């Protein structure tokens, strides 16, 4: 099976705020492989290094050591991002544009053929149920609507890999259900989805495989069903155990 995402001994260090402090290691020698057609959950507590890893994959941050590849192309090459869609955790779009203009802009960047652009925008607007508001500036949208525009822009190039950073954060239950449906649909179409989330129930439902990282280190990776069998617990319990959460200590602290 084709490897879509691969990291080899990936290490990311940040410069300290003060010169006396040691360098902060955000990701320590991470080795990860995601294959074609998988829905892969990337889990970890806040500050574990999930976003940093995603930032390396997306070319925002350069690795201190090691390497990362998308479709066997080094992530430092912009062309590695030709077949991906990215949905950030929060909505970061040009608010003075309408949803349609935003999609047209991104379609142009991806060089989507002109005769396909209108059809593609129509499909996506219907998919995210924003057809009625497509001519309105994004600044007039609610948070949920903005998140759906984000999803539409992530799909404009009909990507083979979707990278979603906490796609359901801040959404109401209906919004979450819709995002989950879309992920399921993409999976059925054979797309690869790589996403981070704190909603472990959701991850359990939609993911084939997961990786849990803590303090920049990969703690465990495997099929959800295998992990549940191995630990005799649901994903939430497994997660808490792996990151070293101790209920008794937490109670004492409280």
């Amino acid at each position, binding site marked *: 099976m084709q490897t879509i995402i691969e990291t080899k001994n990936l290490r990311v260090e940040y410069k300290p705020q003060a010169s006396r402090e040691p360098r902060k290691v955000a990701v320590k020698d991470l080795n990860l492989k995601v294959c074609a057609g998988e829905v892969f959950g990337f889990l970890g507590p806040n500050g574990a290094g999930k976003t940093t890893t995603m930032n390396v994959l*997306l*070319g*925002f*941050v350069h690795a201190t050591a090691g390497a990362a590849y998308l479709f066997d192309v080094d992530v430092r090459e*912009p*062309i*590695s*991002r*030709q077949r*991906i869609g*990215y949905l*950030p955790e*929060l909505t*970061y*779009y*040009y*608010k*003075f*544009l309408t949803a349609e*203009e935003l999609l047209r*802009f*991104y379609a*142009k*960047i*991806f*060089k989507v053929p002109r005769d396909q652009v209108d059809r593609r925008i129509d499909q996506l607007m219907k998919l995210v149920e924003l057809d009625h508001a497509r001519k309105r500036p994004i600044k007039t949208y609610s948070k949920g609507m903005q998140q759906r525009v*984000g999803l539409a*822009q992530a799909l404009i190039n009909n990507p083979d890999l979707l*990278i979603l950073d906490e796609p359901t954060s801040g959404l109401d239950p209906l919004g979450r259900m819709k995002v989950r449906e879309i992920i399921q649909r993409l999976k059925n179409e054979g797309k690869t989805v790589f996403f981070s989330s704190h909603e472990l129930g959701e991850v359990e439902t939609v993911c084939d495989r997961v990786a849990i990282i803590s303090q920049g280190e990969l703690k465990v990776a495997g099929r959800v069903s295998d992990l549940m069998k191995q630990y005799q617990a649901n994903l939430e319990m497994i997660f808490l155990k792996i990151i070293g959460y101790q209920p008794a200590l937490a109670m004492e602290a409280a």
Partner: protein
Amino acid sequence: MNTVFALATVVVKELYRRKDFYVLFILTALVTVLMGSVSFFHDAKIARYLKEICLLLVWVSALVIAIGASARQIPSERENRTIFPLLAKPVTRWQVVLGKFTGCWLACGLALLMFYVFFGVISGSRTGHWPLAQYLQVLWLHWVMLGVVVAMVLCGSVIFAAPSSNATICFIVVTGILLLGRHLNQVALREPEPLSSVLYAIYFLIPHLEWYDVRDFVIFDHALIGWGSCALATLYAAAYTGLLLFAAWLVFRRKPLNL
């Protein structure tokens, strides 16, 4: 180039959806029309003064538009975090710099066109004289000069943290060059060493934007500037624009995306 033009389109859309340009245009139009409607001391040369005032307002407004629009481009991408979904596409940082430059420069060109059409109508209605080729030359040289200004401001926007400080510094530098640039070598002659060498170095380093200020050709109805000279001036501005954009990219390519 596809990506560069896509980015430029967004910049142009942003400019015409903001109110800055309209305010400046209305202000220029209002002042010019008001001045034109008053007959000072029944002076027959009133049309010349009118042209002078209108062109001065056009220059000031164009500088405000160029500096204001360019100064906020890259910082606002970083502040609003729109840079993240953008760079998650197959877009390089060089294309971002070039796209922002193209957008700002085109937007300035559109604004200039409107200003000069207005100027042409006001001037023509007063004098009955329509020197279109001359207007075209003045407009072109003005636009080419704004290219250097836009590139300078973009370069500043990746160096200085706040857009307001960048805009202020660039405005002072550009105004300084326009007012003092041509005199620097003469001042250098009168100064002792090492100040003389420093001033000479500055004189040869700065882009001489004042060469592009050919308002007097229109005001005093001089003959056309040679097209060869126009082409050389365009090349000179293009070289400085290229250098400044390259410097902007050098700084931006290693810059963390978070502010």
